[in-house]
């Protein structure tokens, strides 16, 4: 073990490098963003599912939607209260949540995710 020193130094450098992001960002946690609702969304009071569910699971729900619509041709969504919605990201979700910057982007940026929904789906379809 005549290389003991070299190994230890190497290990120390490695650990320092790999934990660097944690040290660098310590104490600098950004506050969770507040999302803004459009007037339309406020008036509706509740989304297709309860707010807590939507916050946690909207991506899974959208995944179910896209699967059912594109692959099964089933387009009607009926929630627990029996209310019906057209399963369409553009025409239902983004019609109400037509403020991409203040609603979608804020949270996605905070969580550092970049879903590519908007590469194809057009937000604010009615152009208000």
């Amino acid at each position: 073990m005549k290389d003991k020193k070299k190994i230890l130094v190497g290990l120390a450098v490695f650990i320092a490098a790999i934990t660097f992001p944690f040290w660098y960002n310590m104490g600098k946690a950004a506050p969770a963003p507040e999302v803004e609702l459009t007037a339309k969304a406020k008036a509706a009071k509740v989304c297709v599912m309860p707010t807590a569910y939507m916050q946690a699971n909207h991506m899974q729900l959208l995944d179910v939607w896209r699967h059912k619509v594109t692959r099964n041709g089933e387009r009607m969504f009926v929630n627990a209260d029996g209310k019906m919605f057209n399963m369409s990201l553009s025409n239902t979700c983004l019609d109400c949540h037509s403020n991409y910057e203040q609603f979608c982007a804020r949270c996605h940026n905070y969580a550092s995710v970049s879903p590519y929904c908007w590469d194809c789906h057009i937000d604010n379809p009615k152009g208000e």
Partner: protein
Amino acid sequence: MNNSRRRFLQIAGVSALGLGAKPVLDAFAAGGGEGPGFHVARGEDALDAKQWAMVIDTRQLQSSADLEPIVEACHKVHNVPTTIVNKNHEIKWIWEAHYHNAFTDKTNPFLNESVEHRPFLLLCNHCENPPCVRACPTKATFKRERDGIVLMDFHRCIGCRFCMAACPFGARSFNFRDPRPFIQETNKQFPTRAKGVVEKCNFCAERLAVGKMPACVEASNGAIAFGDLYDEHSEVRELLKENYTIRRKQTLGTEPAVYYIV
């Protein structure tokens, strides 16, 4: 010493692999199923068929001017980029062709002149036995059992273009670049596509789901009929009974669902 260190590294490596795979396995276990308290259904107005089919009465479509509004209606409603200059990157869902390009296996040297000079509408044939579906490695293109439409799931397409090689009708286009700058007038109710995926005619699945006929059918002034191939009282079956029709390359056994009255 040497041996046990190697052993340790081997075990560590395998464990790291196992830990890495766990979230994937969890995701599989959690997949599918309907969420808390909701269910999904067909829309009330949705139109149904065992196999949607189209009959194009080419006698009523004598010139390019007759076809133009039909092609435009489709491309407009589906956000098809029509202003791409580079012909290599062209995208088309429905387009005009000469008889001898449309029916390569039925080109007599001496043809009925009115047929020979008539323009023909080409689009995806929504084959009953589609080779593109057979080729797709991810089921991104699939034949919908509910109504026989050959559809694309743009979320899943990896852009391998195997389906383009498999299609004997040239019905498929690939997004060689971002199509958005080349869409003349965006229909905001319908998505665009992103670069890197294949696209083609969808028999207006989104319109059938809300009780509307396909856009080209609506724009054709009755020259194009649309209906269920396996309902003997449907409009298409009535037309097929009364008229002699041809299909493109039917010797290949793909069973196209688009028929032409010449």
